[in-house]
């Protein structure tokens, strides 16, 4: 795109642009890398609460853009520091979190079962055992995840899980009926 040459000189400018995939982006150009043709854009404003995203956008996917205002280069070279150990730790934490979230997803289960699992997990410790929801490591809820499918555990735990399951199923049905 011919604008990419101009954008190299326009670091710091605030643009509103639209991509060929119909994404609308408004932000300040942080950097432009000519060899890779990638623009680094910081979205949002400095106001508190504004949604600020960073985008690395291939400039050849820009359909059109509007120049909004000129500003200074947002990056201060003297303040560019990288904490390698911190980044590594951050990545490890993010991966652990992703694993935890992946564990919450049942494999080969219906979306209704997943919804029931998510609802139960709000108040009870649950995990999947193939297609069986295991609550508090003792009570098992198997397909089709009705109160009568609750087995195992102490009578007190069993009753508790049944009640919670009934309540959550009612909530899901009410939510689904309101959305229809």
């Amino acid at each position, binding site marked *: 795109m011919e604008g990419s040459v101009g954008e190299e000189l326009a670091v710091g400018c605030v643009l509103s642009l639209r991509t060929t995939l119909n994404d609308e982006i408004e932000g300040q150009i942080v950097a432009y890398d000519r*060899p890779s043709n990638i623009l680094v854009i910081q979205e949002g404003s400095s106001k508190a609460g504004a949604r600020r995203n960073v985008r690395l956008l291939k400039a050849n996917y820009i359909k059109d853009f509007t120049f909004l205002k000129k500003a200074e280069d947002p990056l201060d070279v003297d303040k560019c520091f990288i904490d390698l150990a*911190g980044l590594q730790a*951050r990545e490890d934490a993010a991966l652990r979190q992703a694993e935890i979230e992946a564990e919450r997803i049942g494999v080969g289960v219906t979306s209704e079962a997943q919804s029931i699992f998510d609802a139960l997990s709000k108040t009870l410790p649950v995990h999947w055992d193939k297609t069986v929801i295991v609550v508090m490591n003792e009570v098992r809820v198997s397909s089709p995840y009705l109160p009568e499918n609750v087995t195992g555990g102490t009578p007190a735990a069993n009753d508790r899980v049944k009640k919670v399951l009934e309540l959550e199923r009612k909530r899901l049905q009410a939510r689904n009926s309101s959305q229809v």
Partner: protein
Amino acid sequence: MAPTKESVSEEIPAASSLGDALLYATMCIVGLPVEVQVKDGSLYSGVLHTACFDRDHGIVLKKATKIGKGKCRANLALGDCVDTLIVLSSDLVQVVVRGFVLPADEGVVDHVVGKSTESVNQVESHSCSREIEREENRSIFQNSASRQVTESRADGDKEDNSIVEVANGAPSLSPSSNIKGRNSHLASLPDQLSSQEIEAPKALTSSDTSTSVCSTSSTSIFDITANSYATGLVTSNTTIPKKIKGESIIAKESKLNPDAKVFTPTATNYRQVAAPVPRFVSPSQMSNSLSVVPTIGAQLGHEVESFASRFTVPSKVVPYNNLIAAQAGNGTHYARPEPIQGTPFMPQGHPRPHPPQANILKFQGTAAQPIQLPMAPPIMAGENQTLVAPMHVPFAQPYAVPQPVMISDVNGYIFR
């Protein structure tokens, strides 16, 4: 030997500085959950592991999930998750990091420069490109064109690792290979990845060594100038300065003083850091000479003085409620003040805005619950050390203080 900053200062072309900015921006987002859009419109969400925007390289996502369907058929179905996803540069449209502000943006910096940080050599960007090649070489492919990720998930076998490479719209990556995605076992991913036997497709192997590559797991090393800083370094041979010139320091907002002004350190006093406000001191661990707990906030000067004059340097970390006082030692320690609302207090660093998901730093050590770390640990044990608290610090004990470094030389170039 890496070229010194002074020696290459006259040789830096403008184009190199632009590449450095992209390198810096990419390094800042490594480890964050990002969304990657490919040219057919598909959207993938995952943790950015490494990136190289040169030639045919691309980016590598860990724990990637397809969250947006594109126009063309792809290897992954919507909602599928793979351990490692390689998006080639030719297929890449954009990488989006939600709710993140670059640390050096708007005059804000995370860390204070310190003399005690290690000096390292130049960034070895080709090591990053090697990592991408390793990722490619570990891909598992099948000859069956109909095999999908969902099938591999449904059949229940616990295959350790899978790497899926996204090619725009093609049901198979190459004429001779296809993708098999699989959730990995919950065991350590890097260990599994290294032990996985795979077959490298010819189409994916790159013989190029790229230049613009970013990865924290590479052997990249950086120049650290005298003014570059790493967080929370305290040595056992130094003492906390007795006085900090508070008149030149503007206290950062704290929970005790929400209206406090943004803190900016002075050049001469950047090493002198105020102590945080521990509400509880473990008597078994803390020196009994510490009798006054300074308050975090505007009264930085005299409070640091009072704290510093009383503070001696034990050899281990002292927790106070969620606050850890970094103790002197030759290793890396830091103090972790209590979480507060609002922007963090950085007694010796430039204040930084408080993005909701920005810069989650995690220190090495045993696993610990994530802890908001809005305020800087002010405990200093030496003239040449400064403690800096990152924004959000999941804290673990024992831990090592991360050592932020400034990329002053990248391939012989200097940031401009």
